[in-house]
């Protein structure tokens, strides 16, 4: 009881802080200097229609590389933690049979979901979406496959190969930018093309597709590790 009281007092204090923040908030009417730079320069410099993509893949591309690395680390640790001492002879004692609806639905939907994922990351520089979202959609297709057949095993070698090749190519493209254009991960060593076309914005579609594959492989490996550790 006393614990709950302390928790509520703490929340009340934080809530008071939030309330003063909320009441004192006045929205900007103009873009601030950073945002103005991005909004003005994205189209002539980068050639990407989606400004958020231009920021993530080119202006702050190094941060994205770091982010993908963090994701890779967390996927690796999930795999490591779950593999430690996991094989103590506990075989599944038979799972609940999955319904006909789910099995048939998966057969129909899984390829479409994968296709949508690929579409989302290939068009990352034109539409809201991109590598991370597309990768997550790819992984949700994998999740559907796992739901339909909990005993299904994905090849970790395949996932790891896709993941490391995508990562390696990502860094290589970054180095191409360093040598052939203005700096690391500069997208302009390929022609920027016409704004709004699929083959435009230099290397952005390439980089974002690789990020999509990498993120998809990382999420898929997390899902596969989690599902394999299921003991009951």
């Amino acid at each position: 009881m006393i614990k709950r009281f302390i928790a509520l007092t703490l929340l009340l204090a934080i809530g008071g802080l939030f309330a003063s923040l909320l009441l004192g908030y006045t929205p900007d009417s103009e873009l601030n200097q950073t945002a103005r730079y991005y909004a003005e320069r994205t189209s002539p410099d980068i050639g990407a229609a989606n400004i958020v993509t231009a920021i993530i893949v080119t202006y702050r591309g190094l941060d994205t590389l770091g982010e993908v690395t963090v994701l890779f680390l967390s996927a690796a640790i999930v795999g490591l933690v779950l593999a430690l001492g996991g094989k103590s002879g506990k075989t599944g004692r038979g799972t609940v049979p999955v319904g006909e609806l789910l099995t048939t639905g998966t057969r129909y939907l899984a390829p479409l979901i994968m296709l949508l994922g690929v579409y989302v990351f290939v068009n990352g520089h034109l539409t809201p979406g991109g590598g991370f979202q597309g990768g997550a959609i790819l992984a949700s297709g994998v999740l559907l496959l796992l739901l339909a057949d909990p005993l299904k095993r994905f090849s970790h070698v395949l996932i790891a190969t896709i993941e490391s090749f995508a990562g390696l190519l990502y860094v290589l493209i970054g180095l191409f930018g360093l040598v052939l254009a203005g700096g690391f991960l500069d997208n302009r060593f390929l022609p920027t093309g016409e704004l709004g076309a699929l083959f435009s914005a230099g290397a952005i579609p390439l980089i974002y597709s690789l990020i999509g594959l990498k993120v998809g492989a990382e999420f898929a490996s997390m899902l596969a590790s989690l599902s394999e550790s299921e003991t009951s």
Partner: protein
Amino acid sequence: MMPSIAQLAMATGFILILIGFYGALTQRNLLRMIVAFTLSGTGVNIVIVAIGYMHGRTAPILDATVNAADAVSRVIDPVPQALVLTAIVIGLGVTALMLAYALKLHEQRRSLDIAKFTELKW
């Protein structure tokens, strides 16, 4: 005065953060605590996106209606959106990690009750 959409979204985000904190502080079950952490993370994301919102402007994507020349006066702030995109992905990695630890702890103790784990208690 009617609150604007940005203020409503911000208030929602703050409330979600508080709900998440409350859950993390009072729940005993590890899974519920993970859900609570995810909730407060979502709240933070909503608040950041709401800060970038500007009334009467559109998404930071250039197309036929928002051409490159007048983008500065037509689009909202793209920086918070890029930030939140990063935050969501990292949040997912953190959640997966927490779930993996919870699974491992459950394997050892056959329980998800936080009170059963006393090694680090003082």
